[in-house]
């Protein structure tokens, strides 16, 4: 693999992207899907996440262009140059252009957009061309099957040289990107990224999967992909909570959050600084709304903040230390949800049932038992 001179890379781990111009040779939905899968190929190997925006300036502006399109690297019509992208940086940095004169496709009857987009996003993240013919970053086009795609080792080494490996889940040994072909969904060492009520259902999020269940019915629990119900969230939701009396839920990823009514997204992502977080907070680990106090508790590292939902502002004298305020709950909080006067804290493989009135932990179970394992 090769990096660009000076090794430019993104200094943040949540990047926005926007598809500003589409091609006529594929439907917009197909382009959206191919782009999303191409970004996911990289986010599965490094701790980067991608948030789609539909207006304004994004870190990675994506467009289909023809001929001379204003960046002093004109396209050359069918074949020849297929696309190009700019190394990480402000303005043009990260932007990715596809030659609209090509015949783009989701399959093989033309140039496969997933294949070319995955290559170009390698540049947009800081990789130059590789001389390894098996690498995705090899300069010449070679069709890659989108479904079941695994980043070749040379590309994993290159991108992890810039951003390090994706956070090992609970200390698991980091290995070159080899996603579990048959993920052990009942892996008892696993925790959850986020847990929330949504209407009458309880939702558990982990990586690209989420489970739905009735609160009092531990059967019929089935995993779904997050993208199937929350396309904008894609994977790795950081935190989520619901204010039932308002019928709204909040989903957090990096410094962004989305508001939903049920499964319906209510507009584009917003920034967590709307809640009054200090700028050094880049992401939330867990969130839980407590109806009795009408406060939402946000957990960040080993501290937590309290947000007054009625007044719409962060309470004073926060953050506080989590273990001091919630004795008996050990370790960093990965997810939390309030049910009938108890707060359930998920920390690694354990779920703590905390009695809000008694201010004490009343039981500890395996996290995975909540999804029927």
């Amino acid at each position, binding site marked *: 693999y090769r990096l660009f001179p000076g090794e430019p890379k993104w200094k943040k781990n949540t990047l926005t992207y926007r598809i500003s111009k589409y091609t006529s040779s594929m439907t917009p939905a197909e382009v959206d899907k191919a782009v999303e899968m191409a970004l996911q190929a990289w986010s599965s190997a490094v701790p980067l996440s991608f948030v789609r925006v539909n207006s304004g300036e994004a870190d990675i502006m994506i467009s289909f262009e023809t001929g001379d399109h204003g960046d002093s690297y004109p396209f050359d019509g069918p074949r020849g*140059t297929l696309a190009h992208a700019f190394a990480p940086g402000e303005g043009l940095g990260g932007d990715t252009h596809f030659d609209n004169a090509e015949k783009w496709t989701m399959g093989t009857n033309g140039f496969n957009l997933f294949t070319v987009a995955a290559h170009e996003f390698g540049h947009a993240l800081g990789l130059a061309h590789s001389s390894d013919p098996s690498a995705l970053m090899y300069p010449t*086009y070679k069709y890659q099957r989108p479904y079941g795609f695994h980043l070749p080792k040379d590309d994993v080494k290159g991108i992890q040289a810039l951003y390090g490996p994706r956070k090992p889940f609970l200390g698991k040994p980091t290995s070159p990107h080899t996603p579990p072909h048959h993920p052990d969904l009942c892996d008892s060492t696993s925790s959850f990224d986020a847990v929330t009520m949504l209407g009458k259902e309880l939702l558990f999020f982990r990586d690209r999967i989420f489970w739905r269940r009735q609160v009092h019915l531990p059967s019929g629990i089935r995993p779904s992909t997050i993208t199937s119900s929350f396309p904008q969230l894609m994977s790795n939701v950081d935190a989520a909570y619901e204010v039932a009396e308002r019928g709204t839920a909040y989903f957090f990823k990096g410094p962004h959050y989305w508001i939903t009514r049920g499964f319906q997204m209510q507009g584009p992502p917003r920034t967590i600084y709307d809640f009054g977080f200090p700028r050094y907070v880049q992401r939330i680990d867990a969130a839980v709304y407590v109806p009795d106090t009408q406060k939402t508790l946000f957990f960040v590292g080993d501290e937590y903040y309290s947000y007054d939902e009625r007044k719409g502002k962060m309470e004073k004298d926060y953050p506080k230390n989590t273990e001091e305020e919630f004795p008996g709950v050990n370790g960093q909080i990965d997810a939390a949800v309030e049910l009938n006067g108890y707060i359930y804290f998920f920390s690694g493989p354990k779920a703590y049932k905390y009695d809000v009135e008694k201010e004490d932990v009343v039981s500890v179970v395996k996290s995975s038992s909540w999804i029927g394992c």
Partner: protein
Amino acid sequence: ASSLLAAAPRTSWNNYHLAQAYLNKYYTKEGGHQIGELVARRGNSMVKKIKELQTFFNLQVTGKLDKSTMDVIKRPRCGVPDVAN
């Protein structure tokens, strides 16, 4: 130019111009001399870039536009240069 080519006259001129454009695009460092610009020794610059391309693509380094080199040049590819740019 004829010394660089290993093909029949007509195709050879097409190949030469195709190769010249390719090397200017992908093997010319920013601010570097574009082939065909007035430089001290023209051929040297083109031969040097052909060798760089052949090295990158793990071809036999001949400095000539032989068949395997022209095959690479004709393949659809990414528009980002192969040399530091």
